[in-house]
């Protein structure tokens, strides 16, 4: 019952090239691309529109009917597409939050999150790209091998993994009992898994998954962005960094600090990580320097942030204020940004290392755009590979894939309950229960059928 047939799944991902603010694209490829889109799109009938046309409409959440975003949706029919499969591209305007929400909708309505390089891999497998290009594909996939090994374990926050293993164990007990009733009907000393009992178990697991989805930190992050605070003394280059992250000249940088903008939160898409930059007004609002930029004022921003970018001016020696800020951010997820490295360096790296307990340190020059790519990469790596730990909840789902899987698992349980409602026998309904178990196993990376058989023989005393 391992879900091995991933080759022909319909896949989806956000395919906006990093650095292009504003519009982002959710791309779906595969046989069911059109079906998935139809479920969440309100506009012209997609069956009727011609290939390679762009259509205006809205994305709605079919479960609530809520409108998510106003979009342009293009339909490209196989085989004249990049992957040689049907492709749907949804151009979203609502920024990173709406885009993520759309991706999640796409995933809970039948598509699967694409692996890195998977669109290209399909293009290749379907004979679209030639051999020389395929080497690059190979590299991509190989990079993935390493990553997925680690990722299966590391992307998972320990608490979540623990919770899911627990859920799976409970489901497995149920499955084993159903199986035992089927394979050893003559044994009367095994409790029979009745519809009533199965409904109780399914409802219980369902409740726990719903809770998980609600409290899942990453779910919150993908919805709301990763709360990020840029901290530092005046003039160290915070606004300049912010502008770079936002990829547009929203903030005005002058030699005279003090341009005010009436924005409290802004969003940036940093290599797929949605950053919610908190208190950007504070960064920009320097009218009352002493009060607003002092440590006290930063405290609040620090407390509510999941990630701190602490900016220091590398061309000056460390000040007391810097030290205070370092101290105030100790123990948080933090990146120390040594800015203005284009100027002669006066900061002592060793001292910083010592003070910050060798945190992530990165050197940049906002003015020359040096080190900024590295900064973005580091953020993405911390997020995806290390799993930025959460300040508010003790459980965290680390990416859209997991959320998608959890949503599907939830759906499978709803199918169990629906089946029981319509009087289906336990052993049939159990198919959906098994599916739920497999889906959860995909999160922890241990869908493995023999587990069930092992469980059968260790839990029950069977045989002639």
């Amino acid at each position, binding site marked *: *019952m*391992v879900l*091995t*047939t*991933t*080759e*022909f799944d319909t896949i989806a991902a956000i395919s906006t090239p990093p650095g292009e603010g504003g519009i982002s694209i959710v791309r779906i490829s595969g046989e069911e691309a059109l079906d998935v889109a139809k479920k969440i799109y309100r506009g012209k009938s997609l069956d009727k529109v011609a290939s390679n046309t762009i259509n205006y409409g809205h994305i709605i959440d079919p479960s609530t009917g809520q409108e998510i975003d106003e979009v342009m949706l293009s339909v490209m029919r196989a085989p004249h597409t990049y992957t040689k499969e049907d492709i749907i591209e949804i151009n979203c305007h609502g920024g990173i939050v709406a885009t993520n929400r759309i991706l999640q909708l796409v995933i809970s309505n039948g598509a699967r999150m694409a*692996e890195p390089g998977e669109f290209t*891999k399909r293009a*290749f*497998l379907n004979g679209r790209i030639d*051999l020389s290009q*395929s080497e690059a*594909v*190979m590299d991509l*996939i*190989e990079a*993935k*091998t390493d990553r*997925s*090994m680690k990722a299966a374990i590391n992307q998972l926050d320990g608490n979540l993994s623990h919770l899911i293993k627990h859920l799976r164990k409970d489901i497995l007990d149920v499955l084993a009992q159903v*199986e035992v*009733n*089927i*394979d*050893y*009907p*003559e*044994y*009367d*000393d095994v409790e029979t898994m009745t519809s009533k009992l199965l409904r109780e178990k399914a409802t219980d697991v369902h409740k726990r998954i719903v809770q998980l989805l609600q409290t899942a930190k990453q779910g919150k992050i993908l919805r709301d962005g990763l709360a990020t605070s840029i901290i530092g003394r005046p003039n160290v280059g915070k606004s300049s960094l912010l502008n770079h992250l936002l990829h547009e000249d929203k903030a005005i940088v002058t030699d005279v600090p003090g341009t005010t903008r009436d924005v409290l939160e802004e969003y940036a898409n940093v290599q797929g990580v949605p950053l919610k930059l908190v208190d950007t007004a504070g960064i920009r609002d320097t009218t009352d320097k002493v009060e607003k930029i002092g440590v006290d004022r930063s405290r609040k921003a620090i407390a509510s942030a999941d990630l701190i970018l602490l900016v220091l001016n590398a061309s000056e020696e460390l000040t007391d204020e810097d030290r205070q800020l370092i101290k105030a951010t100790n123990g948080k997820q933090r990146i120390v940004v040594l800015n203005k490295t284009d100027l002669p360096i006066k900061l002592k790296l060793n001292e910083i290392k010592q003070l910050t307990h060798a945190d992530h340190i990165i050197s940049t020059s906002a003015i020359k755009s040096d080190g900024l790519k590295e900064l973005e990469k580091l953020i993405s790596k911390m997020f995806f590979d290390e799993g930025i730990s959460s300040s508010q909840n003790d459980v965290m789902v680390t990416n859209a894939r997991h959320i998608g899987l959890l949503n599907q698992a939830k759906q499978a349980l709803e199918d169990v309950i629906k*089946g029981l409602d*319509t*009087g*289906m*026998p*336990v*052993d*049939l309904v159990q*198919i959906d229960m098994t599916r739920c178990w497999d889906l959860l196993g995909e999160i922890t990376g241990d869908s*493995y*059928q*023999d587990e*069930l*058989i092992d469980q*059968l*023989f260790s839990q029950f*005393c*069977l*045989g*002639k």
Partner: protein
Amino acid sequence: MKSLRVSDVKQKYRGKNYDVIVVGAGHAGCEAALAAARMGNKTLILTINLDMVAFMPCNPSVGGPAKGTVVREVDALGGEMGRNIDKTYIQMRMLNTGKGPAVQALRAQADKHAYHAEMKHTLENEPNLTLRQAIVDSLIVEDGLCKGVVTNTGAKYFAKAVVIAAGTAARGKIIIGELMYASGPNNSQPAEKLSGNLEELGFDLERFKTGTPPRVDGTTIDYSKAEEQPGDATPHHFSFESSDKNYLSVKDQLSCWLTYTNETTHKIIRENLDRAPMFTGVIEGVGPRYCPSIEDKIVRFADKSRHQLFLEPEGRKTEEWYVDGLSTSMPEEVQQKMLHTVAGLENAEMMRPGYAIEYDVVAPYQLKPTLETKIVRNLFTAGQTNGTSGYEEAAGQGIIAGINAGRRALGKGPFVLKRNEAYIGVMIDDLVTKGTKEPYRLLTSRAEYRLLLRTDNADMRLTEKGHELGLISDDRYAKFLDKKRAIDSEIQRLNQIRIKPSDAVNQFVEAHGDKPLKDGVLASVFLRRPYVNYQTLLQFIAAPDAPLDRHVVEQVEIQTKYAGYIAKAEASVEKMKRMEAKRIPDRIDYQAIDGIATEARQKLQKIHPETLAQASRISGVNPADIAILSVYIQQGKIAKLKKSV
């Protein structure tokens, strides 16, 4: 250099030539030989003792969950097991009737002696088949091709294909307490040499173990202390060809009886554990977890105060009873003591002690899905030889090996059943893809598409194939097509008839606590309601032109009621089929592929899967490995191993 023993024949002679030779007339061998012969091959079946053809060394029963479905699958392919048990059963029961259609299971108690005699008679009467008593000592193999066999009497028989179905006889060893001696099942002669020859040919053998309970004298059982378990009154058959009019009434069937072990039984076992070969280390073979011996159960499940025991008759013309649940290799005197603690068996006389048996197995990763071995061409293996356990598992492999050996002899291509087509397909794929660390038994939970692999539709799934193979007669095929047409046309009819919200309908609906109908509803949709079956449906709609056979009604009901689940399962089969279609070239050199994880590489190299789907089922091969492999195959730059000689 091998030294000859005095008993070895010096003089070899040449016997006749055949198309197919089958070694062993157990449950696998009989099916293999019959299939090959019926396809038009001149076939020879050799077996150690003609009085043990299709012998049941253990449970005198056929069928049960998954296994019963296999019997029907064998039947739909034109095999013999279903017909044979329908002729010789002494009790028939449908199990799991309270559950869904996917898991209902037919089980029969067999008259063990009649079962053997009937099968032997069938072999004798098969025109293309010769049955002969002989022990095969070695194979004739030249240039990696199997060309025949040599027997202990010195006969050399040549053939285009050979099937080995040696069961538990290969270097068999019986163990009872401290006693251990070379023997096949039930004190039969073991096959001492064939395994050695297989090793010389390069096969990797493993040593497995199984066991059987004592038999007691039925005239000494006190049945009043046990609970009776009679057979079913409703007729059931394994074979499509059997008819209801021959079904035995309940009083003509024999009952089984249920009783239990108790604390005293367990105490005796515990006190004698130091004499149990399972724990003293005498037994080296790996035993099955699903058929643990009683001593094993008592150690592993120490908190259980009793275990079920079923007393099963071994036949009509014998008073021997099989004590199901008490498999043991304890010393004989301990066995007798154990028996006497059980309610109903206080005065029972033991007729044969239980025993454990160890035997050689060909590790099944060395086989292709056709059951041909990878190292020796034209050599096939089947049944317990491949690490399975059970008569049905043996028969299922036997027929596939026989078909493929027969087709090879006829110069035709391979025949393989897929996981979505039959339990037989699941079993063989499991064996050749994952291997097995213990005697393999089929369980419904091994099948991912069990809703499609039902007992009731085995004929629908496989009769077509059986007919194409030339194993199903035109007459039976015509009957099958009639059935199929009747089902299809009735389903179609139900999809067209509308049930109006009449008073009668609404009264009925409300009586079952449902809301009354407002609009008309399709008969097929109405049938999906849990409280509606085909018969009740006929109260509200016109009956079909001719009354339907009960097997047709069964299909109409199942296919309508569970349509949603069936469609879901079929959708996932479609996906799997596309992976199955991606073939991996022969002799691919996995060492030459970068990026595959080491464990996956080793497994792939060992198993040499034939399709990407098969590769993906190997434990330890991850999706990323499959991705790399598929890109690699697509590139067409296949590094191949040199052909081994």
